[in-house]
């Protein structure tokens, strides 16, 4: 199994080291030629979604990645990655627009609003760091809500797409990765 991690900007190295921790091969996607080999899943990391979006266009990665996601490749977006996947972004045009949710960017405010908590993800208690995080204000039919914090939706799955507003790559827990790897295995 090989997982591609979008490595244009942000905390991609952290995802790669988590995948290594559960013995999954990972590689960086920085430009078009990195998509040439076979891979079984894709991670869109945390960082600044506006920066990543600009680079996706400049480096001609937007169209091929969108097609790959639409064709059913399992994809996991954290924070900025959730924003990239969302069908609607409050006050902005969507990026990939493949995941039927509406996200609110910087929903908890600026850095002073960042926080950590322990709560349920798909029925299991895990640590969740939120850093200038978004949340989902609306989810469409067929979108499964996996976590809610104080009533706000912060983790969802729709078919091949998984998204969290928090950063499992910054904790010692591997539950969210195991969940994603199961999605990948089920598709193979």
């Amino acid at each position, binding site marked *: 199994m090989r997982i591609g991690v979008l490595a244009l*900007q*942000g905390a991609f190295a952290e995802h790669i080291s988590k995948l290594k921790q559960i013995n999954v091969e990972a590689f960086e996607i*920085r430009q078009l030629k990195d998509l040439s080999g076979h891979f079984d899943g894709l991670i869109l990391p945390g*960082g600044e979604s*506006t920066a990543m979006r*600009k680079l996706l266009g*400049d480096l001609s990665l937007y169209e091929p990645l969108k097609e790959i996601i639409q064709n059913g490749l399992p994809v996991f977006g954290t924070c900025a990655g959730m924003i990239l996947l969302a069908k609607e972004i409050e006050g902005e045009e969507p990026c990939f627009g493949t995941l039927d949710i509406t996200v609110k960017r910087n929903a908890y405010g600026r850095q002073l609003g960042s*926080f950590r908590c322990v709560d349920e993800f798909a029925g299991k208690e895990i640590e969740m*760091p939120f850093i200038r995080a978004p949340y989902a204000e609306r989810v469409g039919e067929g979108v499964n809500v996996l976590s809610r914090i104080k009533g706000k939706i912060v983790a969802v799955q729709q078919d091949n797409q998984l998204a969290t507003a928090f*950063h499992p790559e910054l904790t010692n827990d591997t539950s969210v990765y195991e969940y994603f790897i199961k999605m990948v295995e089920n598709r193979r």
Partner: protein
Amino acid sequence: MEDRYQLNKELAQMLKGGVIMDVTTPEQAVIAQEAGACAVMALERIPADIRAAGGVSRMSDPAMIRSIQEAVTIPVMAKCRIGHFVEAQILEAIEIDYIDESEVLSPADDVYHVDKRQFKVPFVCGARDLGEALRRIAEGASMIRTKGEPGTGDIVQAVRHMRMMNSQIRHAVSLSEDELYEEAKKLQVPYDLLKQVHDSGRLPVVNFAAGGVATPADAALMMQLGAEGVFVGSGIFKSGDPVKRASAIVQAVTNYTDAKLIAELSSGLGEAMVGINEQEIKLIMEERGK
């Protein structure tokens, strides 16, 4: 408090592989965001103009910083003078995302830096070597950048600082545990932080390059030397075509080892900022705050 410090270090992790641009107006901030900046530094005058103007340089007008906060969704940073904890309190009060306790401004205290542990918002500080970096981290900085020599368009100092830091880190890694006590004494740093460097082979926080970056090649050079991202101050809005240059520097930071791509990115960028050599300047900002 420990939690807050962790979250602040983690925000810096989210900025990695990105370019933080100096902007003086909301319009410039929007240009920077559209060009792919991962954060902006709001200031009234860019370092090259601070250098040209002379006199005392202070924290920017909070109203001006606010107008930039309203213009963009990416994190907004702002500078306070070294040791000026009230300027830092003001920046915290307007909910800035990161404070740069910066040698670019005139120091307010020639002995003490701000006790950054007293703040909830994160701080980034400049450093020329491992000693300065670990002292700033001990004071509560959650991100480090090279000092370079701001506003010159000359990369030599940033290269010197990054190489020095890397060489000192490699040295710390090579030491046996009992030798670390003496090394901590020499570097004038807390033993615990040096031990972390010894064990991990890196600084305990994210480390960016800053000071003198003017071209995509400069940015890629700093990345290849081990920077985790780049600050560009005067280099963008002092150049002939800021939009094109900003976007080229952003791409060069992502693909910093692809010389073919950087060759393309460097083509037809128009005029770079006019540089000044270190022998030609009177004011050496890197000497501020050790």
